[in-house]
């Protein structure tokens, strides 16, 4: 995938049509859009406004209320640190801090070269394995700061497959 993929209006339309262009399915439409592009591109949202006839403000209200939406492009590699309670008591915060130092970005941000994104999530249901870090969709349990540093280094060098 390119750095910032161009929004394919046809795809946006297909998603809107999946829900019969019904405004009460706005949440589901935004979720499907985000699954497609990993974030909600502005052009896509403009198209949704046109199609559903809802104000952009309402879309923003929804997209900012729910944590799972992203309004900015996200990186090629995504580190998602679980900061649920079970992971917290096993040191999740230290892992976030370690990645902040390694990637040189604050949690929630994406590196300028769009290579890395660092995010937090509140529990993904694998609490028994905490602390847990999801790296590009893969769950890694019993994580340590040392292991994370090594993984980040390898990804930066492009040594690990997608």
């Amino acid at each position, binding site marked *: 995938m390119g750095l910032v993929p161009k929004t394919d209006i046809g795809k946006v339309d297909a998603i809107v049509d999946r829900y019969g262009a019904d405004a009460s399915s706005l949440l589901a439409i935004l979720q499907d859009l985000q699954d497609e592009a990993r974030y909600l591109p502005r052009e896509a949202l403009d198209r949704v406004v046109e199609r559903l006839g809802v104000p952009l403000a309402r879309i923003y209200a929804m997209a900012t209320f729910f*944590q*799972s939406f992203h309004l900015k492009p996200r990186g090629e590699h995504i580190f998602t640190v679980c*900061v649920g*309670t079970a992971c917290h*008591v096993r040191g999740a915060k*230290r892992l976030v801090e370690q990645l902040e130092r390694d990637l040189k970005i604050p949690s929630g941000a994406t590196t300028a070269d769009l290579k890395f994104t660092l995010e937090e999530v509140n529990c993904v249901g*694998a609490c028994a394995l905490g602390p847990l870090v999801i790296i590009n969709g893969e769950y890694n349990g019993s994580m*340590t*700061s040392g292991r994370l540093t090594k993984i980040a280094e390898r990804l930066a060098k492009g040594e690990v497959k997608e």
Partner: protein
Amino acid sequence: MRFATVRDLETRSERMAAADAHVRRRVLVCSGTGCAAGGALDLYEKLVAQCRKVKLEVEVELAPCGEAKEPLYAAVTGCQGLCQMGPLVQILPDDILYTHVTPDKAKDVVAKTLVGGEVIEKLLYKDPESGKRISKRDEIPFYKGQRFIALEGCGRVQATSLDAYIARGGFSSLIKALGMKPEAVISEVEKSGLRGRGGGGFPTGRKWRSCVEAEGEERFVICNGDEGDPGAFMDCCIMEGDPFRVLEGMMIAAHAVGAKRGFIYVRHEYPRAVERLQKAIADCRETGLLGERILGSGLSFDVRLSRGGGAFVCGESTALMRSIEGNVGEPRAKYVRSVQKGLYDKPTVLNNVETFACVPAVIREGGEWLAKIGTKRSPGTKAFCLVGKVRNTGLIEVPMGTTLRSVIYGIGGGIIDGRPFKAVQTGGPSGGCLPESALDLPVDFDALIGAGSMMGSGGMIIMDDRTCMVDVAKYFLHFLLEESCGKCVPCREGIFQLHAMLEAMSTGRSQAGDLEKVRRLAEDIAASSLCGLGKSAPNPVLSTLRYFEAEYRAHIENHKCPAGVCRELTTFQIDKDKCTGCMVCVKACPPEAITGEKKKPHAIDEAKCTRCGACRTVCGYDAVQTR
């Protein structure tokens, strides 16, 4: 295949039960979130492929087959409980439970056990005290003292198969309920004393009755699968591991209250639960278990799944309904009750996933059966996620009335590395932390509230002496600060202030008198917030203050964090007498702040140390000390 009548379904159930009884051997691979993270799905595929490679015939679906054939049947199940040691594989009827079965072990399992009939010792559970290997699941201490009602099928049947569900009596409770008057179904649930498992413990039967009594043409049934408590995954396991049971519970509720439409609201972070429920809904529609005139009865009912967007407050009943309607999920004042005016202002029954999962058993066995299990005021069982600093983490279900001590020390096997127990947290962000002195309390809605915590939806987080109670309280406040919907001032601004005060404590900026301010503000927030989130937000602070005030005082008066967690108040040092010079910490230290030669005491360069705590975790000699 379509079940037009009860008889059609019964015929199919009988055939599938016969097929199930005919299975020579079954291999059940756990595909719960924990085991899946350890590669369980890959393992399953490898197992099947390996069987085929060695020409061992294997069925992946329960299928009626000729009498002569006694198949080997391999399936994925929901969480089998002991997630800590996953991926887990059960082999029946041999009654073998294998632990830590990573995908590379597939070949061995097939060759040695499935073909050779031999037990692989090193994959068996090892008792930490005696070092003895245990093969039978029910003889492992973790599984003793548990009783499964909501989790009856989770981890035991193929999670994705309608046939596997009906082979074990699935939907027989629906059939029974359809033969009863709705009123009789409600009475049965009332008799059982079943209380809502979503946290509040409201009597389920009474909720259903109020819904029936409310005025309105149309009624709804909603299943709350939002599971917002960060550190809990019971509902996730039930939805992934036994989706048909949840649907059956909802159908029985729909018959009882006269609903035609139902919704399941599932948390966004649970993609597999979404996928499995969606498939279960599709299978039910296709076979006529959902739709018009189900099984030829008067019940017409359909279920739609809505994905949540990752907001804790949406687990609150009124916010959840707003969200299903397509709006931002903000709670509504409770002066109108949602059983009367709920979704689209119509009478609505909303129950938790685990509550619905209990319903089929209540109908099958009768209300009095459940009433006899557990305690008088909290009948039945409760599922918990036993996590944190406990040795055996996983998913459990115990009769109400079981003491916290037997859960933590019996099932959980005590604290990791034999460290001292400090607190157990239940009820998530709305709950509290209970100390050692509360360990003999029974698991019971009222007993836990009396002690300043609450049952909650089932998160149970165990903490040891290296957990800081100020930090835990601050953690929950931070969580709630982000999750408050912002509609009312006491919640939005109050939590912000409380969090700032605790932040000051944990960074050494607080002053004498701050404790009193914290207490007063906490009480005000509880008294004046609109919804349950705000009302219960101060609980984590108030309960830790109640039992761990000395620890707060150490932060405020001495600027010290006794547990060595709050980084501004902590320095790390290596105790020269304890350090064996094993070099383990050197490798674990990301900024390379530790120096020392092999077999000689190491030292930490304080200027380089980022206080990450990694060295303390890895040191096997307790040589890393905090001050």
